């Protein structure tokens, strides 16, 4: 198992950041996100927290580095280039926090990726501790801690990889084929798992950065034009992404937060 961890501070209030999270697709950095649907949403009557479950369909291919490690035929021809992501969020507006969890729904035996984010309103006391005398510099901030866990079970007995549902509507569970002779001889099972997890980490570093850029664009649109501004921006993004000749030449505002990344090996 491997971990990726990142901490970031948005120069926006918690309500704005939480709204931007629900509004973040589409943005110019999310062209791989094809669809987003709300599966379930309710306010817990006891805690008043808002629970949301969404399903995202994203364009993604099994990286070629991982494909090379898989027994022949697995993850290859039937890899449609799309993957389903389940996202759960809980918002507590009173306490000023939001927790999110996103996970892939298929191929979890080959590589299960679980991203957790913890958004937190930064109170003035916290800011004082962080910035010393520069408290008045910014009005409101929100911190987010992102942790991504990678786990490959490849080679550990039964593999719980799941094929895409076919057109008949049924889905098939496949068990790992007995690898051809020599497949595991050059690389130990632990080595394969480790390699797959490492490929996941390197792809995630870029994905986390992109998603942050996307959030910053949505937040900037919120600040300058409110929800209407965000919706107008989305319309333009959609035209640019799916229009006949998307003029993809706009200069987007850069994120302006503080950033630091660390990576841990969970082993």
């Amino acid at each position, binding site marked *: *198992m491997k*971990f990726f961890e990142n901490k970031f501070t948005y120069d926006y209030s918690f*309500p704005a950041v*939480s*709204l931007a999270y*629900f*509004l973040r*697709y*589409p943005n110019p950095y999310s062209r791989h*996100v*094809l*669809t*987003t*649907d*709300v*599966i379930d*949403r309710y*306010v817990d*009557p006891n805690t*008043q927290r*808002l629970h949301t*479950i969404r*399903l995202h*369909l994203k364009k993604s291919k099994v990286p070629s580095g991982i494909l090379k490690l898989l027994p022949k035929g697995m993850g290859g021809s039937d890899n449609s280039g799309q993957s*389903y992501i*389940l996202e*759960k969020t809980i918002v507590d*507006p*009173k306490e000023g926090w939001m927790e999110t*969890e996103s*996970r892939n*729904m*298929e191929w979890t035996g080959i590589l*299960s990726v*679980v991203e*957790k984010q913890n958004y937190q309103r930064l109170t003035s006391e916290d800011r004082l501790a962080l910035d010393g005398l520069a408290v008045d510099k910014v009005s409101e901030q929100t911190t987010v801690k992102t*942790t991504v*866990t990678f*786990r490959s079970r490849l080679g550990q007995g039964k593999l719980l990889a*799941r094929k895409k*549902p*076919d057109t008949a*509507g*049924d*889905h098939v569970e496949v068990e790992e084929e007995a690898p051809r002779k020599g497949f595991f001889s050059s690389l130990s099972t632990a080595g394969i798992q480790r390699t797959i997890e490492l490929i996941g980490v390197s792809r995630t570093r870029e994905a986390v950065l992109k998603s942050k850029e996307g959030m910053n664009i949505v937040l900037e649109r919120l600040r300058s034009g409110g*929800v209407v501004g965000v*919706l107008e921006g*989305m319309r333009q993004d959609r035209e640019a992404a799916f229009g006949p000749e998307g003029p993809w030449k706009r200069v987007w505002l850069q994120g302006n937060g503080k950033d630091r990344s660390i990576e841990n090996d*969970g082993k």
Partner: protein
Amino acid sequence: MAASIAPECNDIKEKYDTCFLKWYSEKYLRGNTSSNDCEALFKNYKGCLNKVLKERGIDSMLDDARKSGSSETDAEFLKKS
């Protein structure tokens, strides 16, 4: 607004999304957490969506994934953090 996985649900989804954004930013985040202005629209949207999810076999995959919240991975994850 983000498109639905079911193109036939896009219209009702857009109505629901618009309602939700208004409710979330103007009521929920301001402390009016017990209101549920968008319930009827959500019901319509869910009705449309669930049909398509079932047709494509995504519903059972969703059920499995939703249950996996307390998996071994999470238990180990919590131990580490």
